[in-house]
């Protein structure tokens, strides 16, 4: 076989062109997205510009206006969550309320809350005997109890330490957030999380335009991408505007509590004071801000 230099060089040039980025995508928006800086390294003007671009993209995709907010953490606030195990009936309304609010993909299905079912009197705290796909005609089922699990917003989050690109971090109000435009999708955080809280977009998120919640936050429920990780943010878009997370509102039995841990008069502080609270997998020293408790007399 003989290849002269001319044909070889031509071939090499074509080969190089082929490996370059797809030219049809090379419009301004593609490159702007490609070179977008880390969220925490942008100033307010840059963030504003990025949000404008993202809102435009979202509008094109879903054919409706989607507002992407950027409310910052309120000084003197550290959010905490309480869950009354003696009240939870395992109805999963928190799960569906969360999906409605936070724009998770429906096809394939992504849930941020997992409700675990346990047999009464069997192993409990190590979670090994739990069942998450229970599907009875009616809840609560006799002989069982339930424990919902979601992101525990740890004070010492192992996921944040694991992330190789600083794409996830703990904001001053204690919420662990993700910049979906900086995550490279390596899933090291998912290996590091002891609570199975993180979800990966294995495919392009599938959700109908009419199902989209248009009130979003950059670090929370805005539209996500294929190949990035997401998780519960205590409904950052609501919490930072003084509202309860959607799961708190969805719970029909009032098992879910939420408030400012730094405010001595808050519901959360009252609860920690008066009930016996525990946190999941305390032996790992992650210091969750998600408190489970048993109420008296029920």
């Amino acid at each position, binding site marked *: 076989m003989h290849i002269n230099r001319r044909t070889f060089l031509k071939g090499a040039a074509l080969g190089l062109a082929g490996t370059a980025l797809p030219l049809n995508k090379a419009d301004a928006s593609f490159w702007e997205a490609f070179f977008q800086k*880390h969220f925490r390294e942008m100033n307010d003007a840059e963030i504003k510009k990025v949000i404008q671009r993202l809102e435009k993209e979202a509008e094109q995709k879903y054919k409706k206006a989607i507002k992407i907010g950027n409310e910052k953490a309120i000084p003197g606030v550290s959010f905490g969550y309480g869950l009354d195990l003696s009240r939870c009936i395992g109805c999963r309304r928190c799960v569906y309320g969360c999906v409605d609010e936070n724009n998770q993909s429906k096809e394939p299905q992504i849930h941020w809350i997992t409700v675990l079912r346990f047999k009464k009197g069997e192993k409990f705290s*190590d979670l090994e005997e739990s069942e998450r796909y229970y599907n009875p005609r009616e809840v609560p089922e006799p002989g069982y109890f339930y424990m919902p699990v979601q992101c525990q917003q740890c004070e010492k989050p192992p996921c944040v330490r694991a992330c190789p690109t600083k794409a996830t971090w703990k904001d001053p109000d204690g919420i662990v957030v993700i910049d979906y435009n900086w995550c490279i999708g*390596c899933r090291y955080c998912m*290996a590091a999380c002891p609570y199975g809280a993180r979800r*990966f977009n294995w495919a392009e998120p599938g959700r109908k335009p009419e199902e989209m919640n248009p009130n979003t936050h950059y670090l929370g429920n805005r539209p996500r991408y294929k190949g990035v990780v997401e998780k519960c943010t205590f409904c950052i878009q609501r919490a930072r505007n003084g509202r309860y997370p959607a799961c708190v509102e969805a719970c029909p039995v009032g098992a879910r509590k939420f408030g400012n841990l730094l405010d001595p008069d808050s519901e959360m502080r009252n609860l920690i004071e008066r009930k016996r609270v525990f946190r999941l997998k305390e032996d790992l020293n992650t210091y969750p801000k998600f408190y489970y408790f048993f109420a008296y007399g029920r």
Partner: protein
Amino acid sequence: MLFLIKNFFIALKQIFIGSKKYYLWVGFLLFLILLGVSAYMDQAERGLIITGMRDQVSWGFYISNFTFLVGVAAAAVLLVIPAYIYNFKPIKEIVLFGELLAITAIAMCLLFVVIDMGQPLRAWHILPVIGSMNFPASLLAWDVLVLNGYLAINTSIVFYVLYSLSIGKEYKMSVVVPLIILSIPWAVSIHTVTAFLYNGLSARPFWNASILAPRFLASAFCSGPAIMILLFQIIRKQSEVKIEDRALFKIAELIAYAIGMNLFLLGAEVFKEFYSGSIHSYPFKYLYFGLHGKSALVPWIWTATILNITAFFLFLLPKARENFTTLNTACIFVIIGVYIEKGLGLVVPGFVPDTLGEIYEYTPTTPEVLITIGVWAAGALIYTLLLKFAVPVYTGKLRFETKELKA
């Protein structure tokens, strides 16, 4: 400057010189690469959903292959140590080919990491200065540093030695020795850091055991040199490179000790897990016996265990390791054994049961396997092409033009 460019083309031309068999081999590899690339295009389009991975088992076949290959890359050190510290001549001559294998293995590692990423175009985010590397907190950041450092060191040594030889000069030991001395601890570091990457996660009891890093090293010193023994036999058959039997047998002896150590460490782990029997032994139970009726990995890990034990005795007995039939059988056994043990057998049980107690059975899908084969073919091609250049330089057949020659 001009003769540098000219020399580059002399080197490049080397790739196109070859027998029919060579062209068939390269064509075969290109075909496999093409299959892998087409499967990857599908993955790039539809996402990692075409793999068997899900939220419960979020790493799979790609990261398994990555882990195995870090070991192969680290094993180049096994050749370097006796060659330079004990001045064992027959190995010294062939260290070069071991280092070429290390370069190839690292290139494959990087490919496996990139194909596992959800957003590969954002890979630059991990780099220092232009990205935002989470150093020193993230062990993955450490891994990026040590792997690329190792690649740089080995490339420098190989490039310098080959270039010196190709212009007919003797390479200076004052340049090579410090680099080699540096590469020895560095090789240990790439596998240690990769082990720590798993080891540091308290969420995963299967990995969160101090024995992990020592076992990584022991198993790497089994599979990597075994691959080299096979490759050296092919190289000396296909070219005029002389590799003494004595060198191969020495490597085989070292493998025997490494397998012995690996089996001992495995025994220590098995004892601790099963005797104490806490919930932290569940992944181990899942791996070796199955858990709640789920047992996808059981036939694999027992195959690996039997292969490793058989290989141990074949390498241990001087008569067996100095007979090429039994030696090569032992090499193939230990390569497959470690590939299973340090591949799927290490990565998947870390996720089973998952952190909330679910048992999700992972099996790689067809596209996932095709992409993996594609990366292996790419590795084989890289090594073939590197040899295509290195062998004639090494044997003195290929010499570059220099100014003096022209004058």
